[in-house]
């Protein structure tokens, strides 16, 4: 079954505020994690990734934090904009399972005006 899961199915955030989307994983052998954004009717779009030898990585307005001790991953979006409305998935690269990318169920981010 899926080993990557998300804590909240829906997250509502005021425009301009920061968003934090959380993800738990169970496979301690996973070496690589990815966040994807999926807008309605489109395929998942790569946002940011992180390898397990790092605990933080920053991109443009996004930061991914990895806590290997508690097997927790988070995506932080700064100054959330209406265009950030989408479903966000975390995914893990299963290093010891044919290197598959396994997805969690997703969190819908809803931006309040």
């Amino acid at each position, binding site marked *: 079954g899926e080993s990557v899961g998300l804590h909240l199915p829906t997250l509502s955030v005021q425009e301009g505020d920061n968003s934090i989307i959380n993800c738990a994983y169970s496979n301690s052998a996973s070496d690589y994690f990815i966040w994807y954004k999926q807008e309605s009717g489109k395929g998942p779009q790569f946002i940011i990734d992180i390898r397990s030898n790092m605990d933080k990585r920053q991109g443009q307005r996004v930061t991914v934090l990895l806590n290997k001790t508690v097997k927790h991953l988070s995506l932080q979006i700064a100054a959330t904009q209406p265009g950030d409305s989408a479903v966000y998935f975390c995914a893990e690269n299963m290093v010891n399972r044919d290197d598959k990318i396994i997805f969690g169920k*997703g969190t819908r981010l809803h931006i309040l005006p």
Partner: protein
Amino acid sequence: EAEVAQSPRYKITEKSQAVAFWCDPISGHATLYWYRQILGQGPELLVQFQDESVVDDSQLPKDRFSAERLKGVDSTLKIQPAELGDSAMYLCASSLKDGPINYGYTFGSGTRLTVV
């Protein structure tokens, strides 16, 4: 920017009919994946190719689904016969591999299948 191409974009078919989807990965990406995504859920891996070889098809319902990548480039996924429960988005992705890491993992826009 390089893209994974998929067609058709939408497909409506009657149950018991055959249906096929096509995918052209990013040039140079040796690894190709087919996923099925049911509305409200994350993508579920159906089959993974490395070049022309199937690496993993453990989640592919082989009684009705088949996938091929004959020349190690583009790929087709077929369902025959289609069932109502097959209605979903079918996504193709491709990647480069560096050891166990799948870099450049890119998805196409998908084919939305509706079985009636």
